[in-house]
């Protein structure tokens, strides 16, 4: 095995090779400063490799190699967009580039929306204090070089600042039109004290993508985040959700995923103020050459906070599901309630589930637990349904839906949850 020092050098060399001939995007003072700092972090860390403990179950090569593997475009209409019935402010990105013509006017009372490309040109913007700061914070104790790569090179994204209670959700819609495009988007979302917002994300993004969303929630702020990553077999992407919560703030994030050659969804949450709550959940339907990885890290840094992680995966035809979840409870975070469950249903012999659910606890008066299970459909349940006249296919579908529904219950808005349940059922029925 290669010595650790040599491996570290190879990783740094790989970054140098990747960045060779590239220069940081031009921009105003704050953006340039943040990008330079991120690039320095990246050069220091090097590119991730499979031997990194943090990438144990997911090979990052496809995300780090110099050329983007082209991915066939999914036929239009094959995967109908969700949330269509929901009244929302639509912001459309095509292959990762904001398309104002296809978007709604970014006007919503109490909400300020600026594209990153525009804000980055200015020398003074509220984003100055947030852009790259949570990404930098996320680098300890685990290095996330792909997030630094994003901070330094992303030119697209939305900067959303909310001062009141937003009347409508803001939807980020990603369309894919180019077979080999790479997208790097960096969103900022800041909710001032008591503000509320629902943010929706949907669409295949690009052949390869790297997303960062930095979220800063003021005291008592409430953010609901619902995302779908739909049927688009050949895409490969990594997303990062970084969120810090002040006292009594609440974050709910839910992701519904299907297919995709490689998806890694990372979430790093800091509960910095007392009585905050963070619920991170996901349901995944994986089929065929599919690799889906949920990696979540919740930091309890204040007393009486509540965190939940609920992840469900249904896997078949060789699909691989990964869950790495960690709850870290600081010494001051007494009366923490931390809960984590990761479950997978393997529908055939080729599917795999790889999990590392962790607890790291330094406070004594806490209630923390995690559970993880994996197995096939319960034969006795199947028998029960068949005995009542249901054909095997239908009985299985029902059981699979019931299994996934527990994750959907984590969504705050029932209308959104119903939308996603329909979507999920449609996916499952298509068999592939």
């Amino acid at each position: 095995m290669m010595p650790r020092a040599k491996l570290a050098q190879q990783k740094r060399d790989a970054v140098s090779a990747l960045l060779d001939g590239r220069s940081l995007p031009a921009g105003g003072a704050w953006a340039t400063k943040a990008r330079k700092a991120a690039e320095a972090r990246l050069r220091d860390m090097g590119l991730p490799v499979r031997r990194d403990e943090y990438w144990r179950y997911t090979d990052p090569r496809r995300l780090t190699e110099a050329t983007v593997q082209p991915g066939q475009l999914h036929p239009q209409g094959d995967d109908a967009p969700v949330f269509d019935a929901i009244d929302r402010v639509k912001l459309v990105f095509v292959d990762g580039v904001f398309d104002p013509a296809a978007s709604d006017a970014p006007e919503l009372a109490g909400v300020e929306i600026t594209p990153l490309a525009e804000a980055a040109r200015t020398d003074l913007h509220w984003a100055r204090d947030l852009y790259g700061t949570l990404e930098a914070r996320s680098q300890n104790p685990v290095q996330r070089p792909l997030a630094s790569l994003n901070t330094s090179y992303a030119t697209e994204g939305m900067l959303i600042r909310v001062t009141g209670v937003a009347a409508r959700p803001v939807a980020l819609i990603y369309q894919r039109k180019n077979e080999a495009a790479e997208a790097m988007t960096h969103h900022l979302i800041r909710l001032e004290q008591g503000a509320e917002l629902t943010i929706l994300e949907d669409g295949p993004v690009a052949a390869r993508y790297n997303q960062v969303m930095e979220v800063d929630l003021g005291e008592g702020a409430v953010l609901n985040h619902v995302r779908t990553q739909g049927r688009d077999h050949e895409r490969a992407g990594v997303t990062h959700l970084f969120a810090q919560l002040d006292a009594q703030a609440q974050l709910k994030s839910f992701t519904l995923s299907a297919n995709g050659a490689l998806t890694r969804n990372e979430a790093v949450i800091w509960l910095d103020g007392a009585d905050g709550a963070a619920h991170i959940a996901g349901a995944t339907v994986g089929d065929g050459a599919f690799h889906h990885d949920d990696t979540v890290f919740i930091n309890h840094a204040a007393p009486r906070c509540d965190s939940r992680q609920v992840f469900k995966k249904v896997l078949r035809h060789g699909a691989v599901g990964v869950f790495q979840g960690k709850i870290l409870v600081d010494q001051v975070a007494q009366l923490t309630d931390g809960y984590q469950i990761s479950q997978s249903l393997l529908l055939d012999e080729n599917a795999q589930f790889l999990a590392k659910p962790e607890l790291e606890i330094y406070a004594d008066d806490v209630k923390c637990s995690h559970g993880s299970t994996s197995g096939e459909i319960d034969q006795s349940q199947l028998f029960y349904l068949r005995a009542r006249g249901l054909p095997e296919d239908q009985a299985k579908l029902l059981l699979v839906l019931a299994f996934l529904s527990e994750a959907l219950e984590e969504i705050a808005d029932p209308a959104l949850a119903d939308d996603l349940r329909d979507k999920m059922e449609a996916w499952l029925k298509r068999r592939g």
Partner: protein
Amino acid sequence: MEALDESQLREGVDRETVETVQSMAGTYKHGWETEIEMEFAPKGLNEDIIRLISEKNNEPEWMLDWRLAAYRRWLTMESPDWAMLNIPMIDYQDQYYYAKPKSMVDKPKSLDDVDPKLLETYAKLGIPLKEQAILAGVEGAGEERKVAVDAVFDSVSVGTTFRKELEAAGVIFCSISEAVQEHPELVKKYLGSVVPQNDNYFAALNSAVFSDGSFVYIPAGVKCPMELSTYFRINAENTGQFERTLIIAEKGSHVSYLEGCTAPKRDTHQLHAAVVEIVVLEDAEVKYSTVQNWYPGDENGKGGIYNFVTKRADCREARAKVMWTQVETGSAITWKYPSCILRGDDSQGEFYSIAIANNWQQADTGTKMVHLGKNTRSRIVSKGISAGHAQNTYRGLVSMHPKARDSRNYTQCDSLLIGDKCGAHTVPYIEVRNASSRVEHEATTSKVDDDQLFYCRSRGMDEEEAVALVVNGFCKEVLQELPMEFAMEAQALVAISLEGSVG
């Protein structure tokens, strides 16, 4: 003992419990040192030292070659850094790799030939005089006893009891150095077959420098007529102990093996890197129990044993069964993952563990269950208790290979925290590569439960009794898996740490 800060006390954990926990290192009862004339090899580690160890043990050429190969591999390896342990730099050249009581240079013929100080040591260890006589080779003593003992003192085995009786049953129980001489074919065949030389840094080190340890061979169809037990004792200063244990259970055999260990109190850290290999063949069953009570260091974290242990059982054939039970209370640093390779169809592995870390102790311990055969089953029950400034980590792997169809695993890891300056961590790895296997993992972390305390108290128990009952209950699932011979010692140890203040 340090004065207790009121803020460290929480409702539900009374002062005396916390004090007892804090003073656990202070009351380490095996902390004496026996002044025995020792024969040392020079300090440091190099090929000459390895040759010397081999020569001292009268080893054949193949054994020396094996050691040297391991040493050369070790030189190319790096100390593992993935455990949640803060391991200070270890100077491998500042250790003695071989120490032997002088009186043992020639085997004692009778009790009178044995160094009286060595006998004192046994007495302090709680080994009764009769057994001392047996250890010294005096025949006819202690016939009613049922435990055969092998005692390893620093680097060498000082004696094994009940050899004759075991031999009658066909069981071989001797030191590994004797086994190399007397049963080279068995040692050659199995040594390193479960834990290869290059398995990990500490296993490679052990393979190069192990000086003694126990060897057990249970022939086909034999149920070992008594429990086998080894006591390990590090006595000399600056001496590392590297024992190697090899257990072979032939088809249909059955054995229960107990292991205990102690060391004197010293200000400097001492290194212990052991390897245990168990080969379990068709329908055989091995139960391996450990009470690990190496010196944990004082209440300020000074001194204590660095305990880096590789233990692995290989269920090579159908319906083989292995069960690890461990009570880990000692050592400044514990790095230990007794594992089961479930290769044979329908084989079974079990792991029951209580790990108590107090003061500045650090423990990173757990198990690996590698399911390779069909319909294999494993069960993991781990109870971790942290107090003082200690860090206690459960780390485990459950791996279901594609061919391990219809296999099962159940894992339960519970952690209890006493005080807000310690840490309790759980790091399980779950790898499921087939659909018909079922894996269930549960972990909880909590303090002594208020509801349970309230329930007990409302039924007339005082707070101390209630805490004792709750904590006792927390560990019971594991304690009850220990063989009788060890249950007493283990319960006493848990009592010292947590229940001592009660009653």
